[in-house]
């Protein structure tokens, strides 16, 4: 028993303290060093922060250099696959462009109106600072989904600035070094973004979910969303003041909602393809506006009123068009009915005429027969009156109708 305990102690001591060949530190000293690192890291001392910042800069740039060959291969592959899909994408893009051009005018009007309304409630934010940065490293950590960019405090990057890619929300800055910064992606489980679900105007909090998706939480009525068939768009709500309101994020995946109770958001951007990012900070617009701004607003107001008038005119013309179309349709219907009626009356008239003719003939026949009874003997050829006419001859008929032979003067 004593021997086995001794063996155990010896094995542990050997594992902890024995240095390998050409090793300067024992395992125990390095473990202690790690623990010291962890403990000191929890204090926000300037000296420690400075050292950490230097280590981070070195590691980020080392990572960037190491990933160069991998990125070259990845980019080449993407380029080749893009070329293969070029025509299909072109057709889709052309269709989308057509649709977007149609929507553009109404969007402009809505934007102007939105700006005016936000200004009224003092919620209009203007861009305070804008920096473009390149993604240095995109390490897919199991604990933190983030990317490293090549701009830091030297370029006025501050913690909390929001990060966009093509006007779509990507994340926010969570760590700033002198030359580099870290962006926490909205697909990370630790990311919490206050959002609005449009057009139902429901408020929610979005967190990261799986690789490229978000999950909506704290929604007042989840059934309402699940029951809807229309496309739901997720934008930032601006609650809490971290994110500006109205930045597009993605759309609600209705197919997924049918299978599960969770409401999943498909992001507009693919976070694995990030290359250049826009880092922005916003500030609330000052209420005291200078003269140039006033002029711009006045011009905008004029443009808005003109556009509104034009829109009203277009609406009226459209209404008139609809009404005239309806009238035309009615008239056409009536016309077809009347035509039918005319055709029917003509048919009836023809029938009537035919009847009349028949009756006339019958009347003439009756008249002839009556007169034949009375004056037939005056026209009928007999043995004694050989100059008169035979019964079935037309002259006999004329004679009967004339009530006998008309004497010539």
């Amino acid at each position: 028993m004593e021997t086995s305990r001794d063996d155990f102690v010896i094995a542990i001591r050997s594992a902890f303290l024995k240095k390998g060949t050409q090793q300067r530190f024992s395992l125990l000293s390095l473990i202690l060093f790690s623990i010291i690192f962890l403990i000191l890291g929890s204090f926000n001392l300037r000296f420690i922060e400075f050292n950490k910042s230097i280590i981070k800069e070195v590691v980020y740039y080392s990572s960037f250099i190491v990933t160069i060959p991998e990125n070259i291969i990845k980019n080449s592959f993407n380029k080749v696959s893009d070329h293969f899909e070029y025509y299909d994408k072109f057709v889709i893009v052309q269709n989308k462009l057509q649709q977007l051009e149609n929507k553009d005018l109404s969007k402009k009007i809505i934007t102007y109106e939105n700006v005016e309304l936000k200004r009224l409630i003092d919620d209009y934010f203007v861009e305070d600072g804008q920096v473009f940065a390149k993604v240095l490293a995109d390490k897919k950590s199991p604990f933190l989904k983030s990317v490293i960019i090549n701009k830091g405090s030297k370029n006025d990057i501050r913690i909390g600035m929001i990060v966009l890619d093509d006007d779509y929300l990507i994340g926010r800055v969570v760590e700033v070094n002198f030359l580099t910064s870290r962006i926490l992606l909205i697909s990370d489980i630790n990311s919490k973004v206050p959002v609005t679900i449009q057009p139902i105007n429901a408020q929610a909090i979005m967190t990261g979910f799986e690789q490229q998706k978000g999950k909506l939480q704290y929604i007042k009525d989840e059934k309402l969303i699940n029951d809807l068939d229309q496309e739901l768009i997720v934008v930032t709500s601006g609650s809490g003041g971290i994110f500006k309101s109205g930045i597009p994020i993605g759309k609600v995946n209705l197919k997924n909602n049918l299978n599960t109770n969770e409401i999943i958001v498909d992001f507009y951007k693919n976070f694995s393809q990030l290359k250049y990012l826009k880092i922005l900070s916003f500030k609330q617009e000052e209420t005291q506006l200078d003269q140039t701004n006033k002029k711009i607003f006045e011009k905008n107001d004029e443009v808005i009123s003109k556009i509104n008038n034009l829109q009203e005119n277009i609406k009226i013309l459209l209404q008139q068009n609809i009404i005239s179309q309806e009238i035309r349709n009615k008239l056409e219907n009536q016309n077809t009915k009347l035509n039918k009626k005319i055709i029917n009356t003509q048919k009836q008239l023809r029938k009537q005429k035919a009847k009349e003719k028949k009756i006339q003939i019958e009347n003439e026949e009756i008249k002839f027969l009556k007169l034949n009874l009375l004056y037939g003997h005056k026209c009928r050829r007999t043995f004694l009156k050989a100059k008169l006419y035979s019964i079935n001859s037309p002259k006999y008929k004329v004679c009967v109708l004339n009530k006998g032979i008309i004497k010539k003067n």
Partner: protein
Amino acid sequence: MINAKKNIRYFLYKYTPVFLLFTSILNEIDFNNLGVKYFSFNFVYILIFYYNLKRDGGIGYIFIFIAGLFNDVINGIPMGISSLCYLLLCFFAAYLRNITLRPNLVKDWISFLISILILNFITFTYLFWFNNYEIDYLNQTVNIIFTFLLYFIFSHLFTIYDKAIMGRFK
């Protein structure tokens, strides 16, 4: 000429694990997060455990310590936690090596499972309780399971590589 060849072989034998360690940490392709649902594994754990178990002194504690710091910086977690985990893994491997008379892959495998369970427990506890990180436990469990399962395959691959490089020279 023969000496030069031997030197190259020895260099490859000694520094390939170091190269693999730093490349897997600094590269963007991370086996810990491959983008595949329900599949990921910690290649670094396998590498460190295997080489510390099979070689006296392993990859080199100082390299492992620095690699841990690099991993923390790149993954954005508190600096020192990965170093601590990697070094503790070295300790488990070194202890196992000291007490083992007849090496057996299955025993190594089971020891590796216990080691990574302890290390993940330390990591999750530290990140969750002291730093308020939210952790996807399902993915982490999957990660542990695949790390455990793939140790068997990778240990064979590493053995084959070592034999191919060193061969009779060893």
